[in-house]
């Protein structure tokens, strides 16, 4: 049986499959389908300093091979995460990645310091949410600001720090290099691509927020390209996500340079997607004589 374990910035994962932030809550719902211990880790719902209501509905629109969402970081705030969600998650036998989103540079640092000593395995700093007015993508689309917010979090904590990047930029490699230079231990990408749908009967956008983030298999080739480019531009590990729906997709993403993968929208179509991908990776390794899955990371041979 192949070794599926991977190491990302010093954090050991039993397998490389991690449900992506915003697609898995805090695990409570999907625990009613399978034990969370099957998963490499969980990237929890984006957590802010204070409770957030999120955006007006409708917040979802279907697209060819994917969907748009405009949730707007609805969450109970970091204190509820620490007192209610984290104690439960810590009993589940999987790695916990705390996804945090500050509305200012200072607040991002404050959020990170509040996680010190909490027992989370990793921080995923969200500088790429397209659905909020403050912070979010405003941080992730400017090299200087992306560096500043990364540094503020780095200075506030020694917890391994992964920065989640936006694809809605001219050069994602420049952003990646900036967060690397400012102390990021890893990067994860891609967050959703900004999109829009219009109901032609009402001439109104389907989403009440007018625009939203595109995810699902539709974005997979974009994600593979960006992961490949970033993996070639930085020395820190890359966690790949964007449209992964099968074990073959995960293999492809890892060959592009991802040390681990996150699975998001595919879970909505099939709640069992993460565990099917894990089982499929094991089978793929066995069929292809791969003893250690991490050996395939970045092995694509470009023309």
């Amino acid at each position, binding site marked *: 049986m192949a070794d599926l374990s991977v190491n990302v910035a010093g954090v050991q994962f039993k397998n490389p499959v991690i449900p992506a932030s915003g697609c898995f809550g805090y695990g409570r719902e999907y625990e009613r389908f399978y034990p969370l211990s099957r998963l490499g880790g969980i990237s929890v719902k984006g957590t802010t300093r204070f409770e957030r*209501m999120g955006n007006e509905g409708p*917040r979802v629109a279907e697209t060819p091979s994917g969907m748009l*969402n405009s*949730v707007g970081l609805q969450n109970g705030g970091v204190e509820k995460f620490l007192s209610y969600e984290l104690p439960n998650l810590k009993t589940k036998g999987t790695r916990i990645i705390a996804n945090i989103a500050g509305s200012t540079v200072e607040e991002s640092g404050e959020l990170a310091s509040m996680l010190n000593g909490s027992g989370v395995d990793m921080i995923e700093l969200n500088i790429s949410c397209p659905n909020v007015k403050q912070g979010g993508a405003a941080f992730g689309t400017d090299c200087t600001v992306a560096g500043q917010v990364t540094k503020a979090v780095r200075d506030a904590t020694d917890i391994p720090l992964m920065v989640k990047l936006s694809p809605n930029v001219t050069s994602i490699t420049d952003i990646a290099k900036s967060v690397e230079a400012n102390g990021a231990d890893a990067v994860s990408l891609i967050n959703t691509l900004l999109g829009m749908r219009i109901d032609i009967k009402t001439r109104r956008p389907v989403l009440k927020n007018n625009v939203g983030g595109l995810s699902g298999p539709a974005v997979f080739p974009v994600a593979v390209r960006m992961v490949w480019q970033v993996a070639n531009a930085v020395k820190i590990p890359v966690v790949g996500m964007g449209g992964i729906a099968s074990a073959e997709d995960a293999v492809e993403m890892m060959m592009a340079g991802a040390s681990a993968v996150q699975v998001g929208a595919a879970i909505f*179509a099939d709640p069992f997607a993460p565990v099917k991908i894990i089982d499929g990776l094991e089978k793929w390794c066995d069929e292809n004589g791969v003893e250690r899955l991490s050996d395939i990371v970045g092995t694509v041979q470009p023309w």
Partner: protein
Amino acid sequence: MYTQGKYPIIAKKAIAKGMFDLTVLCPDVASEAVPGQFVQIAAEGFFLRRPISICDIDKDNGTLRLVFEVRGKGTEKLSELNVGQNIDMIAPLGKGFKVLSGKKAICVGGGIGTPPMLSISKLYGKNATAISGFRTAALAILQDDFKAAGVTPILCTDDGTAGVKGFVTDALKAEIEKEKPDIIYACGPMVMLKGVAAIAEQNGIECQVSLEQRMACGVGACLVCVCRTVRDGKEIFSHVCKDGPVFDSKEVAFGG
């Protein structure tokens, strides 16, 4: 636990224009399901599942009855499924209706909001009245099913082509005047639900409404299917799939 699986369709009927009635053999789901819950069905070639309310539950035969309307290309695809084919379903989902045993209920359904009224009204039998409203006679469904369950059906159409001409809210007021029920159940367009909730409140009757919203996960993780509700005097966004689809009408902020 939630169940996801492929279940055989054992009966299919076209019951009105664009309305389909599927019976699905799924003993594990049927044994768990309660009136007011829903299922998430995969439509081949479409990324997201379609939430469909449970119309009827037959625990003895291990079946669910799902009545849906073709609204777009996804539900059109579902309407092409035939007897013998499997349906990919996550079920049962959401919170069902509160049941007051041995009491009197009025169940109000508007259009495609009518199907969930069948399973809940059946629990009350002769102690239930089912008021259903449709735009026109060709869209009227389930009236014989209510009768067969001993429920008193009252059919309303907007154009008067069948039953009483007028809105379900008018019929509801008339029924309450005849005999006040202990509880009102309602499912249908928001404007109808708002009217039903107001009538219930004026008459001091408990009222449960079933809401609809565009969904993705169906289990409460993705947070897209929001509705405005009131908790501790403050408006918040609740989620139809997990906090609902059934809410006490006093919790719902109908707005304007």
